[in-house]
């Protein structure tokens, strides 16, 4: 068994005594693609910055490649790629010069990959950063995060300014990284459909905590919307195990159930004296239901 690239335990962060992240634990294995979801202010960026060691944890800590992420040796830093939410490009430089500056830090820099991608993504290397559109800057910023072929790639809202074509090109690049099997990606995004395509693991942050984490397929399999329809009014009181919410209306009821298993169907149908229909939910609906 390979050891995880990232391991966090009891991770917490407060600013001026106000917690922005509390008691979060997780692991990222080689080959994982983790999608980080959460409303604005849920703590996504703080979490990613703690993993990167940009800021010390208030409690707990993160191990990155087996080192404390806040005291990461240089050789380990070279194995990380980061694409920040707001790019850190230098306005006065041309794209080519900007790439040159970053490339000089990394012995593993892949010139061929970066030239090819800048052609495919239509990034004009001669243009100065200050004259680039937001989308162009974002593409350049992603190129800079990918160029040294990092083992761990961390992206904070990487596609917010990309058009659908550029987004698909970006997704393909992440798939190339994932197909390697020995590299990992952690990315936060509000574009739930991208997370749906790419992620094999999902972290949902809510109220500064890790509200749900796990295998994406099991999330989709385990959270369902139940529709109960009876010919008689439903019983005055009934319990649906693990229901997150129940709405009833005479002879019908709708419930969101976590941890649904097919075996539960018959018992529940009998208890309610109703026909049950199980509706599986898209990630966006699951996300919305978890935030009701």
């Amino acid at each position, binding site marked *: 068994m390979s050891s995880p690239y990232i391991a966090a335990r009891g991770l917490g962060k407060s600013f001026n005594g106000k917690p922005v992240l509390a008691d979060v634990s997780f692991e990222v294995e080689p080959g994982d693609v983790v999608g980080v979801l959460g409303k604005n202010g849920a703590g996504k960026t703080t979490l990613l910055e703690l993993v990167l060691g940009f800021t010390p944890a208030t409690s707990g800590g993160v191990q990155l490649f087996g080192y404390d992420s806040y005291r990461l040796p240089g050789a380990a830093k070279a194995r990380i790629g980061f694409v920040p939410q707001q790019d850190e490009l230098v306005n006065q430089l041309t794209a080519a010069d900007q790439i040159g500056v970053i490339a000089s830090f990394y012995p593993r820099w892949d010139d061929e990959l970066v030239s090819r991608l800048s052609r495919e993504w239509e990034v004009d290397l001669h243009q100065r950063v200050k004259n680039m559109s937001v989308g162009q800057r974002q593409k350049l910023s992603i190129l800079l995060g990918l160029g040294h072929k990092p083992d761990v790639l961390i992206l904070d809202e990487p596609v917010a300014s990309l058009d659908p074509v550029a987004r698909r090109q970006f997704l393909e690049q992440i798939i190339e990284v994932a197909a390697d099997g020995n590299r990992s990606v952690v990315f936060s995004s509000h574009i739930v459909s991208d997370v749906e*395509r790419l992620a*094999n693991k999902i972290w949902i942050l809510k109220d500064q905590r890790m509200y749900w984490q796990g295998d994406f*397929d099991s999330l989709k399999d385990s959270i*369902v919307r139940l529709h109960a329809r009876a010919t008689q009014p439903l019983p005055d009181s009934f319990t649906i195990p693990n229901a997150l919410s129940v709405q009833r209306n005479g002879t019908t009821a709708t419930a969101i159930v976590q941890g649904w298993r097919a075996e539960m169907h018959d018992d529940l149908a009998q208890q309610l004296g109703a026909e049950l229909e199980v*509706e*599986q939910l898209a*990630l*966006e*609906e699951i996300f919305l239901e978890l935030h009701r």
Partner: protein
Amino acid sequence: MFILKPHSGVPIYRQLLDQIRRMAASGHLPPGTELPSIRDLALKHAINPMTVSKVYTLLEAEGVLERHRGKPMTVAAPKRAQSPVAKRLEQLEPHVEHVALAARQLELTEKDVVKALHDSWEKTDEQSVHRRTRPR
């Protein structure tokens, strides 16, 4: 080749699993058909390669797909279909007729014969079935 809807409530791995299973069963994907590599299928549909890999592994375990070292996965030949019961009974008929005739000649009752058949049935395990029927 496949229709995958990431936004559907059905997990992508299950959509792919069901489609390959159905297409193999219906002959849409005849035995020996090569499947795309994990990377190619993942890129074509913009999905996580691990999802494809999981599906291929599950289908290999089910016997729907076959893995070949360094070569594409292929659709496996279906297990030889069992012919219907009536057809197989037909093959047994001469033997049964023979037993019935011999039993009458020996003045045995139907009950005696059924009991004898039952005992004989119990004694023949799977192994002896193959041992006896093979040399023909």
